[in-house]
């Protein structure tokens, strides 16, 4: 394997891990409510921007990051409380438009509360690059990949081994039946929005030292996360991770070997081809319509 290829693979995996985290956020909310939360990217933005501003206020990095995740989680809960719950009974499309409105609102607030400049976070453990098979890797990439792996493992444990996680899965399979079993759908909604917001914020903090952050980074990252979630099969956790990593690798290899201007276009062409061949995504179920 040439050093160049290793380099592309490493950077692809790093970006892919972030896409996977965002995609998992989409996935969790989709499972609980069938809503595509277009404000997901804004949680990523809030994570990065809030950490930068808490750092500026003199907090140490771990504390600033923790506070930023908490802030994003609160905003996620507020979104359920003040936007999704009052619109109970509205169609899914209406709920999606509400999340688009929320995204615009949050972007506007961010540009006022913080500013419209680009901010950088310091790397978590220095800038000294590590050499792997002739390629160089920033220590921050290890943080991104490592934390993502940890989160994926923790989510697996949560959804398969805890009662709360199983309750969310039950609601995603059959809302009414879950309700009849005594599961509070309201609480499931709260937990899933809070969890998704926290995941998004974490992704934003992890990637900020590499790609910087600003009030409008949420648009592109949200879009990529959505693409990754769909590529993997909407609602499938392993699918979201696979979709995220695939998308990251496609972009990095496309930029490296074909054309950097067309790297996004290459990724989307491949997604289109995959969808035409596999209409349910890579790991999506073969859903059938009931008449």
């Amino acid at each position, binding site marked *: 394997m040439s050093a160049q290829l290793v380099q592309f693979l490493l950077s692809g995996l790093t970006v892919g891990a972030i896409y996977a985290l965002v995609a998992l956020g989409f996935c969790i909310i989709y499972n609980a409510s069938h809503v595509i939360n277009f404000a997901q990217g804004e949680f990523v933005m809030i994570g990065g921007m809030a950490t930068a501003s808490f750092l500026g206020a003199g907090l140490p990095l771990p504390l600033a990051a923790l506070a930023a995740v908490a802030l994003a989680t609160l905003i996620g809960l507020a979104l359920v409380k003040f936007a999704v719950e009052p619109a109970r009974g509205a169609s899914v499309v209406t709920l999606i*438009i509400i999340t688009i409105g929320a995204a615009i609102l949050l972007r506007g*607030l961010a540009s006022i509360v913080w500013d419209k400049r680009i901010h950088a976070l310091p790397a978590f453990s220095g800038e000294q690059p590590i050499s792997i098979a002739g390629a160089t890797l920033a220590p921050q990439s290890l943080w991104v990949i490592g934390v993502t792996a940890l989160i994926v493992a923790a989510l697996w444990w949560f959804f398969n081994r805890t009662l709360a996680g199983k309750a969310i899965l039950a609601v995603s399979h059959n809302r009414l039946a879950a309700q009849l079993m005594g599961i509070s759908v309201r609480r499931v909604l709260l937990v899933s929005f809070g969890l998704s917001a926290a995941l998004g914020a974490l992704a934003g903090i992890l990637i900020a030292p590499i790609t910087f952050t600003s009030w409008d980074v949420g648009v592109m990252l949200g879009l990529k996360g959505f693409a990754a979630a769909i590529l993997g099969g909407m609602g499938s956790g392993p699918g979201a991770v696979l979709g995220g990593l695939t998308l990251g690798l496609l972009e990095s290899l496309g930029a490296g070997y074909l054309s950097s201007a067309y790297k996004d*276009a290459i990724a989307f062409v491949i997604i289109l081809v995959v969808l*035409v061949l596999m209409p349910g995504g890579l790991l999506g179920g073969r859903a059938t319509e009931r008449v």
Partner: protein
Amino acid sequence: MLALIAAVALLPLALANNYHYEIAILVGLNAIVCVGLNLLIGYAGQISLGHAGFFGIGAYGSAILAARYGWPPVLALAAASAAAAALAYAVGRPILRLRGHYLAMATLGLGIIISIVIATEDRYTGGPDGMSVPPLALAGFALAGERAWYWLVGALLVATVWLSLNLIESPIGRALRALHGSEVAAEVVGIDSARHKLLAFVLSAAIAALAGALTAHYAGFITPGKVTFLHSIELVVMVVFGGMASTFGAVVGAAVLTALPQLLTVFKEYEMVVFGGVMMLTMIFMPKGLVPTLAALRSRFGKAP
């Protein structure tokens, strides 16, 4: 229908200056796109997050043919719309088999690919800086001035609405609504759902391209900003905001969401916050969209003694 004609005919009385005309023209152009898009989203029930791409093909296609190859603008406009329709036909056949969010993703991807191509191929399109577009002219007579444009766009809007209303009441419209309800059930009663979905997709793409070409010729300048996926989402929001499966809803949605940012400029840096807030509140309290909700209210009060 009469109300719309009256509104278009009487509106100039309320328009005081060229700036007002300009907004009215932009509203009209967006409304034309939304009426077309509503056929696809509201009636056929197929989402598209890529219509800014077709809008862009119309705008840039017409601009490039007219500016770089010296085509007469009217011919360029027709050719660009035909090209968008042809692309919609070619791409629509495979991707319209997808459902729901997967279709949303596919159309989103299509729109993004188009916008990347437009932003990158700067030899033809001028790249991110945009390109200037010659004015619309027919037989040596150039269409200039806000007023002339207002009447052209107004007439086209009325024609589009008329086409849409007629289509919806035709067997094709019934077929579209049937497959919105249930695709399987529609096929059982003998409706070729693939053909009808494709028809709505191609028609809405051609209308979007036509409006795109007109926008380019009207403004005299076009940038890739009009082709981004944010613009696609804006268009869908207009349709849902006004009321899905309501032709007049699409017109009202386009009017409100085009004019609102102009009014909100008084809020300066709070503009986005207010805009997002208005959007959320409207959808929370009028989940079916403006026009259907108001119509339901009117009939409720109409029945009261």
